């Protein structure tokens, strides 16, 4: 009886079929993400490359020539006191806002994740400001914070507190803008924290309770360590967002008093769009991008370390 060599052939066919199927699935998947990739490349990657190239040129709008000037824009930037001033203001704003946003959104998430009455209402109310535009938020808050007619100072006066110059004092103008931003934006990280909290297995809390851990200890030794990836996500995305602050200072304070709330993006906007120095503005954008990358790497190192260990 002759042995029919069906085994390897069948396996080979199955393997080939699986490979073809995987390839087809891959192609199908790729086609599904193609619109996003196409628009991402056209509207994000390509402009970013153009901005980097532009930063090496003396690029003034509508001028016929855009001569290559090497690193001159970056040299000028390093000697531009307004760049350093705006970077300092922006960094202070970002640090205050990220810390405030993270703490408040985490606290709010811890509250609204509990089975309390009107739980859904609280979630909606906390999230609702995120839906507002920056212009609406800033116009409303510029009225609230007005020293003479603002409702905040009105309520404080009921407790005998003298009118606070929320946006007129250089020492408190950035914390004031930060306060506005936290009110506006803490709803989104709250949602992220809620998702993070829901992913923590309940049995870990039960085990901690059996071991005699109180509420604080359960939060400290169970919740926080397991929320570390969520905290990393929140702080990284928040830092990137708040280093690009523009509307709040532009609308509420105009960068003042003096230049106490003048931010990097304001400096970039004025340089590129009001003074038409697109090349120099592009250099600022590239430099800010580098600052963001460095800060993100630092955060990954700081928050990601224990994960790796």
């Amino acid at each position, binding site marked *: 009886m002759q042995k029919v060599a069906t085994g390897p052939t069948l396996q080979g066919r199955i393997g080939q079929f699986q490979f*073809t*199927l995987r390839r*087809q699935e891959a*192609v*199908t998947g790729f*086609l*599904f993400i*193609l*619109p996003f990739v*196409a*628009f991402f490349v056209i509207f994000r990657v390509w402009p970013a490359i153009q901005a980097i190239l532009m930063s090496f040129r003396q690029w003034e*709008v*509508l*001028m016929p020539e855009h001569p290559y000037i090497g690193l001159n824009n970056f040299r000028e930037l390093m000697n531009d006191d307004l760049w350093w001033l705006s970077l300092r203001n922006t960094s202070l704003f970002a640090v205050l806002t990220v810390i405030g946003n993270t703490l408040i959104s985490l606290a709010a998430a811890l509250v609204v994740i509990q089975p309390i009455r009107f739980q859904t209402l609280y979630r909606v109310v906390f999230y609702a400001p995120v839906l507002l535009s920056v212009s609406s938020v800033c116009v409303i808050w510029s009225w609230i*914070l*007005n*020293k*003479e*007619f603002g409702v905040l100072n009105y309520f404080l006066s009921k407790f005998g507190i*003298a009118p606070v*110059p*929320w*946006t*007129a*004092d*250089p020492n408190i103008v950035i914390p004031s803008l930060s306060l506005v931003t936290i009110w506006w934006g803490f709803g989104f990280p709250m949602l992220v924290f809620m998702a993070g909290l829901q992913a923590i297995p309940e049995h870990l809390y039960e085990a901690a309770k059996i071991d005699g851990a109180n509420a604080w200890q359960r939060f400290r030794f169970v919740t926080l360590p397991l929320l570390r990836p969520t905290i990393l996500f929140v702080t990284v995305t928040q830092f990137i967002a708040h280093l690009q602050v523009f509307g709040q200072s532009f609308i509420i304070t105009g*960068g*003042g*008093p*003096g*230049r*106490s709330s*003048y931010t990097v993006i304001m400096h970039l906007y*004025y340089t590129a*769009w*009001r*003074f*038409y120095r697109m090349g120099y503005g592009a250099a600022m954008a590239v430099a800010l991008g580098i600052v963001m990358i460095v800060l993100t790497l630092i955060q990954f190192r700081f928050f990601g370390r224990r994960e790796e260990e």
Partner: protein
Amino acid sequence: MRRSFVPLAFAAVSVLLLMVAMMMFMSTPVLAQENPTATPIVAEAGTGAIQLRYWNGLTGSDGVTMNEMVAKFAEENPEVSIRVESMAWATYFDKLLTSLVAGDPPELFLLHHQEIPQFARLGVLGATDDMFDYAGGPLPAADFAEPIFSATVYNGVRYGVVIDNHGWGLWVNNDLFEAAGLDPSVRPANAEEYIRYATLLTLDANGKHPNEEGFDPENVVQWGACISWLKPTFLSTLWQFGGDIVSEDGKTATINSEAGHKALQFLYDLIYVHHVAPPPAGFDSWQTFAANKLAMIPEGTWFRNFVTLDNPDLNWTAHGLPQWGDVRPATWVSSHVLYWPASLSGEKLEWARKLAIYLSEQGLYWATSGQVPGRLSQRAELDPEVFPSNIAIGRAFEEYGVPELASPYSTELVAAFEPEIDAALNNLKTIDQALNDANDRIQAILDRGG
């Protein structure tokens, strides 16, 4: 095998259709839509086949007045339709610039005279010499008020058609003046009198004036004066003391001159020595004036709408800006000027010119927006009962108005000094430090411009 490609092909076709649909949607011009949804900042006038776009930064009640004038033009000229888009000046400059870069600017747009060099040097403004009678055009050049008319010339070429003059005056609250025993129809004659008036008009919570024992400067309930918008207030004061921000040849920054120090010191003293004006940061001068808590406000001609339409109960008088400096009277004056792009031609150019001429002739109607007509014959026709502020401040423009410096870097120059002056007046920098910093920044801009 062939059947397995069906979902793949379906996905590919779907993706392709989706992308094409999105691109079509993105590339559809608003004007081409069958039923465009007009936002409040867009006004359509007329239904004629010749379509013009007219952009401006008139977002207040002046924008409504402008739209009415354009609608009247379209009514009289049924062959034309005009889409007027009004947006905040900051957005407006961004959008105008983008449209010029894209080669699709509006057929008519509004700017100020000081922005002519900024745009003219880029070659995007259409010249308008042939619009005036000295070059055979229909507009009488001698009827256009100085000093603005001369300020619309750059490198020997005239740009734009002036429709108004607007600038800085002094607005006083009659009720507060009368309560202090002062006559609101009499303008303070000089710095000394201005401070005396302001002292009489400033009150703390105990009803004391700044020159009285026990006055509490931290608890003022009624201010005699204020700084208001820094640029025109400071520039007017600087000119009055004989200074300017740059030298006559435009090559040297001069803001930290002796005149600059005197001007800034005068404004600083109003706040911190005489205690008759609040630090500018966070102070809402308009609402304080409307609340009868501010007696004198340096403000623009456009303030008329605020005190007449928005606050009809206010009892006010407008004057030309008083002379605070020791050299000459001076007040900041600017203008709204209509332009068309250099690339415009054919019938659209003809209609843009006709619309500009028409708007220039409607100065009396435009005066209801508070601005001073750009033409002398129209100023002479202003009714004193209806247009007291236009007349009083307009007269000051003719007598001692100083146009803002028109330079390729005018926006940048203002941005260089304004925050420094703000810092000094909010006590964040000394006067010396602020003026020296402003001078260095201005000089850097001038040096870069060659």
